[in-house]
């Protein structure tokens, strides 16, 4: 469902992503972890068409993102690390626009918007301007718009940022349900315990290279170290936790 085929991204001399080959099949919840600057957001940029690979290819639902970006994005639900919401619109208007883009119309769309607003605890904010919402509430609007059209592929860049524990729990359940229903889910997170808990597969990206991939437990084993994913992460990221 999601595939990187020898994807490379360079900025001048700096290699942000080096020869990434990775396949995330349908029904998989894949957590991509790694220190800041490891290349996680670059990888997501290549998938969503925001960045062009220097070489290699990326696929969404079997569709080459570079060759047929519109068809590929029609299968995608995406939450960027800093979601953009039209400041003067309301959450309901935002969802109505996104729904219309994905060819949802009329009462069916309105009903679905109500469902997503309720699912992300947004009903009471549905008529407020986006610019007046808190960071966490805006993040929930961005999540609602990603789930609105039942995408085959979900790509979420740091989706837990700004969410309270209750909302985090709700999102975890939605992601698990989406994967169980056959979607391929790729998320990046710095919450390693969470990645260990919810991901069926994890990948560890360091300096643009995928150094390990497999179940969270097997990632630990493959690095030849002992301990939890968090401990391995600290080890690879420089030894000691940074403030």
């Amino acid at each position, binding site marked *: 469902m999601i595939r990187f085929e020898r994807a490379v991204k360079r*900025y001048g001399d700096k290699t942000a992503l080096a020869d990434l080959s990775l396949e995330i099949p349908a029904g998989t919840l894949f957590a991509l972890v790694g220190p800041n600057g490891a290349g996680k957001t670059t990888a997501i940029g290549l998938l*969503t*068409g*925001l*960045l*062009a690979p220097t070489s290699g290819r990326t696929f969404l639902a079997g569709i080459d993102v570079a060759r047929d*970006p*519109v*068809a*590929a*994005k*029609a299968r*995608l639900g*995406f939450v*960027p690390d800093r*979601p*953009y*919401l*039209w*400041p*003067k*619109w309301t959450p309901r*208007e*935002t969802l*109505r*626009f*996104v*729904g*219309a*883009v*994905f060819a949802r119309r009329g009462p069916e769309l309105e009903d679905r918007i109500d469902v997503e607003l309720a699912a992300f605890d947004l009903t009471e904010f549905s008529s407020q*301007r*986006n*610019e*007046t919402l808190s960071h966490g509430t805006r993040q929930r609007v961005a999540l609602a718009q990603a789930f609105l059209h039942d995408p085959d592929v979900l790509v979420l860049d740091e989706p837990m940022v700004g969410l309270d524990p209750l909302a985090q729990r709700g999102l975890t359940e939605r992601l698990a349900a989406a994967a169980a229903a056959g979607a391929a889910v790729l998320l990046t997170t710095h919450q390693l315990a969470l990645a260990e808990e919810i991901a069926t597969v994890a990948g560890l990206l360091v300096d643009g290279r995928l150094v390990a991939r497999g179940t969270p437990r097997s990632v630990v084993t493959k690095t030849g170290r002992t301990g939890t994913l968090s401990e391995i992460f600290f080890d690879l990221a420089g030894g000691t936790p940074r403030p």
Partner: protein
Amino acid sequence: MNRVFRANTLRASGRVLLAGDARGRLAAMAGLFALLMFLGLEMAGLEGALRASRAALGELREIRPAFLLERLLAGAFAAALILGFLGSLTTAIGTLFLSEELAALSTLPFPHRRLVLRQAVLTLVLASAPTLLLAAPALLVAAGAGGRPILAFFSGVLPLAGVILLAGAAGIAAALLFVRVVPPRRARLLAAFLSATGLAVALLGFRAARPERLLDPLEALSVVTRLGTAPLSPPGLNPAAWAARAATRGLFGDAGGLLPGAALFLSGLAAFLLVPRALWRLHLHVFRDARPGVARAAGEKHRGPEARSLAIVLLRAEAASLLRDASTPAQLGSLAAVFLLDLMNVRLLPGADASARDLVAGLQTGLSLFLVSALSLRFAYPSVSLDGRAALVLRALPLDPRRQLLARWAVRALPATGIALALTGASLLVLRPTGATSAVALLAALVGGLAIPALHVGLGGVFPRYDAPNAVTVALSTGGVLVLVFSTGLSLLATVAVSDDLRLLLGALLKMHLPAWPFITAFLISATAAAITPLALAASSLMTRDIAIG
């Protein structure tokens, strides 16, 4: 985009006007009122000019009005073409490469060509707004003056739209090619510099052509006769000349003017649609590869001596913010041109007639303060808004907003006062009016130079726009229009306070005696109130008002 997007945008615009807080509504209404007033004044002025020229041309049988009008329109369309190109170039770099909205839309299943077309239309709307603001009243007045208003209207609209579309297409294409070689943020800075330099050169060139000759009736008659009797050369490949010819024919009731006008419009439309179609792949390539350049703060290695007090820290921080603003050099360039123009005017000031010298001394003082208003609108009014998200941090610091507002004011008021005093002083040296007039003029320049930046900093703090992408957007907001109205009023009051002759003229109109002291007192009280009240309101607002930043 799609129907839902348009409906949402329309509803959101209505919400800003009708459902914002009282302060926002007041600023929106004041801005709307100022806009309507501008349009009304322009129409009234044009109707008056039209009546006067009709009467004059009735006496000058050898002059062909069509020649005059076509030459006038050729100049206007050429200006629209150049301004449209420069405006589109600068705007397109922002809308096509630095827009967060475009990045969000790019992840949705829209064909990229359509997104580029959408951003191009947005660019055209933003870049042509000043031209349309000036041209729309002129078109209405011109259409109403002829015998066939509908024909005249369309004969004007079609070539104008054609010229705007051609300029937009050229500007957008240039922006795409420019960003191909220079990173977007630097490209925007360079384009703004280019625009400002172009405008400054145009202004100085216009001034060097000595348009004041037209104030001398004999010279004016000679110029008008020359322009109104010599036939025009064929338009060739010059779109501005074609537009002028088409519009002139239509305005004189010739339906044949519609054809070249429509041809120009269709050519412009074709060029405008062709640019996204031909260059969307280039845009996609550059958009995905464009990385914002890392700007290193000038002088960051040279820290200078350690600050001895918080006031000095705040002053240094303000000065650094002001000087490191990427668009400051470009905009200072065009303001420097205005400064030069004013100095060029000084040597043409009347030297013999005492009454004229007194009148011009008042006008020059008003002009100096108006320049301070323009400077303040760009550099003082947006100062609070430009904190952006840093406003959240500032609010959380144990820092009295009054101290910070005073630092913002001091950094901007010092150069503003210097400019006001230099311009007024230079005029006074040439004019040599009475001692009393000179003293009042210098006092007005000093007080106005200090008060106007305070008014702008204060009202900018009362109506902050932390989400605005740049200073110009803040300055052009409804609050910006409101503050410009206030500071222009203060400049006008200074003019009347300085000039005995102007007060005599005003007194004759009002049939009453108008001595100097009430005006001087009113100016001093207004300036003091305009400086202190908004700063106090801003300090209170910045301490207590909710902050919502995206």
